């Protein structure tokens, strides 16, 4: 299985497209993954179960989205 000439744009050629090396993805996964999880926290849980900022403005601002996206809101 090591012989095929791989071209990502031609999946119909019958072989898998070239995979991206894990070592090239991991730094991105740590950096972007963490950043995205922080975003999800502020949309989904801030000023609900726990609070980074005091008050309820963040909670109230994203209130409708939080409910419709499925997060426990209050």
């Amino acid at each position: 299985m090591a012989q095929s000439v791989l071209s990502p744009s031609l999946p119909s050629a019958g072989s898998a497209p070239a995979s991206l090396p894990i070592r090239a993805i991991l730094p991105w996964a740590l950096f972007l993954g963490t950043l995205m999880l922080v975003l999800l926290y502020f949309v989904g849980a801030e000023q609900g179960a726990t609070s980074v900022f005091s008050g309820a403005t963040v909670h109230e601002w994203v209130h409708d989205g939080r409910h419709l996206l499925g997060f426990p809101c209050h």
Partner: protein
Amino acid sequence: MNNSATMPSGTVGRLLLRGLLAGLIAGLVAFVFAYTVGEGPVSDSIAQEQAHSAPAGHHDHGGGSAAAAGGAEDASAHEHAASDAGGEEEELVSRDLQSTAGLATGVLVYGVAVGGIAALAFCFALGRVGRFGPRATAALVAGAAFVTVYFVPFLKYPANPPAVGNPDTIGKRTALFFLMIALSVLIGVAAVILGKRLAPRLGTWNATVAAGLGYAVVMAVLAFVLPPNDDAIPDGFPAALLWDFRLASIGLQVVLWTGFALLFGTLADRALAPAAPAAERAPVAAPAV
């Protein structure tokens, strides 16, 4: 072995940027859906909430202090934590803002965030899950994300409208909700890896079925073992309204993930196309981005 060494390492960054963009646009479409389909049930639920909380007074929602703003009873403030904090009765964010800019913020940020994470998953999955091109891989990742991140956790801990919810148990409910998502994603990834291992022995179809059944059985056991949602639906809460709200919640996610799959699949396909052997074909107007 794949010839991964020929892939420029900047490819990952370019794919992730496209994931964020696709998530943003899909989030915009999902917002339009949520506003047109979801806001009706949300407003009706808040009306229910106020009608029932008025005599008890446990879950303070601002009463009529801000009713003058909208004229309608439903438009009065919807706030809970503010009364705990400082006893203030004024609304922090008006219903008009909550249902428009607030909803847009929530859905767009969610779209960007899950778009970025799904693009990361795509980078890992491309060329590793089978003979799927970029567009098919994007569709598979989006479908798997919808099922593992949203739908299966929803079956145990469904989305609840504003009227439902005991403030005293928000911590426990939030923890269980995120635990369910984390376990679902972990077991989903484990199932994919298991399926890949089994494929040489069982064949691709049987290995895929085995992995899918394995995920379903483990999740069913977990759903049985984990404690139930402490939210009791209040007596007298309209069943049809609850159904409409939850259907809107599912619809929002279907729109979001469908939009992401189609957009990101196309963008990723184009981003990866110039990496094809240049000798074989004339370059077809590769985008300079």
